[in-house]
């Protein structure tokens, strides 16, 4: 009925690695401009789900649609969809041999076939957006974790994606660096970017998410608005998980 409003539809995704069933049957719909956070214990399939969305991991079954176009079984067209689905990784994965600005512009030149001068302009613009313009000529090894992650966000944004996937973007960072990355992500939320975020940052999830999905054993066990999940979690394990978070945050 309201399906056409969803920018992303994930339908009955299953994925196993050998005998390990990582995703059992996951479905999730995301509207344009929404931020959906995935929380839950480690090893429950959150990152695998994100990787299935841009087909870095090929699901065993199920379908994924972006703007009503099927991403699964897209063949070579997957490279088009991947431009539309930006991804930020836990370990940044910046290209080690390229400066920050080259990291951002390389896909513009090689994939989007943009002219180098235009690509440079766009790359500098995106680096400015994440507060990294003055670090443009530095190599990844010369950046702090937070700076590297902000460059990787700029790199993904430069492709003008329809949605952004964040796979534990702050898990490799100390609290101070975490804050600078979360600030950038909050700014993106305010700009109306559609985002799927795997995170353990409950504070961030609660303050910006439209929807939080609690995952365990390859399933979304509970989903709802932050207040629904925080104040009235139905599922026992979710209660315990959020309880632990509260205990530590106090």
């Amino acid at each position, binding site marked *: 009925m309201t399906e056409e409003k969803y920018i992303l539809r994930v339908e009955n995704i299953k994925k196993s690695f050998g005998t390990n069933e990582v995703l059992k049957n996951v479905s999730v719909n995301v509207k344009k401009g929404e931020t959906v956070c995935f929380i839950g214990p480690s090893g429950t399939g959150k990152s695998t789900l994100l990787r299935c969305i841009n087909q870095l991991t090929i699901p065993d079954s199920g379908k994924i649609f972006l703007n009503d176009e099927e991403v699964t079984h897209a063949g070579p067209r997957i*490279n088009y969809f991947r431009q539309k689905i930006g991804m930020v990784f836990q370990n940044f994965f910046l290209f*080690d*041999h390229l400066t920050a600005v080259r990291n951002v512009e390389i896909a513009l030149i090689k994939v989007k076939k943009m002219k180098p001068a235009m690509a440079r302009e766009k790359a500098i613009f995106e680096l400015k957006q994440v507060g990294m313009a003055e670090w443009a000529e530095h190599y990844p*090894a*010369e950046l702090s974790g937070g700076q590297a992650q902000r460059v990787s966000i700029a790199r993904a944004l430069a*492709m003008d994606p329809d949605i952004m996937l964040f796979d534990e973007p702050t898990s490799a960072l100390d609290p101070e660096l975490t804050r600078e990355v979360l600030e950038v992500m909050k700014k993106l939320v305010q700009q109306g970017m559609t985002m799927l975020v795997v995170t353990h940052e409950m504070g961030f999830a609660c303050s910006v998410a439209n929807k939080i999905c609690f995952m365990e054993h390859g399933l979304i066990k509970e989903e709802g608005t932050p207040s629904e999940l925080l104040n009235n979690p139905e599922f026992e394990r979710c209660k315990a998980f959020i309880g632990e978070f509260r205990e530590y945050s106090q």
Partner: protein
Amino acid sequence: MDQVTFVLDVMIPAFQNGLLMTLALVAITAPFGLLIGIGVACGRVYGGKGVSWLMKMYAVFFRGCPLLLLLFILYFGLPSFGIVLSPFVASVLGFIFCNSAYNSEYIRGSMISVKEGQLIAAKALGMTRNQAILNIVLPQALRRSIPGVSNEFIYLIKYSSLAYMITVIELTGASKLIATKYFAYNETFFAVAIVYLALVTITTFGANALEKKYAIPG
């Protein structure tokens, strides 16, 4: 003939011609050796099962076959199959096979050492597998293989002397001819050794500069 006349009138002109031939052998072999080495390494790491196996066999055969034997096969053996190569072409071909097989191993090692995340990130940006290999993996792998590849280049300078065995009068060949003609073994071979040492030293400095220029910070 006194020593000065021998050096000026005999040794230097002979060395000049020999050196030019050595440089020609090296200059033609090196780029092909590198390019084919890159191709073989890519095939081994990223090719399918069949391609990977073929590339492996290429490396196994040409690394396993003694270079001198390979030159003999190319120059003396192939004519019985109707393929007649000039001594120069046979030498260059033999050197390219050998050089590329060794280079492929240095480059393959470097390719494997590039973190998997680099390829994943490139794919996530919409690059095809080939674009990712060409623009992300290879530039990093080639930088890392500079010490190995330059080492192989140094070997090439020295094993180019084997071309003499199939009648190419390069540096060693030229020196052997005048050494026997004038019965001046010691001075001729010491002199030619110094020329090789100079070539290798220049290469070493060049390789170091290249390594420094293309070093990846961190």
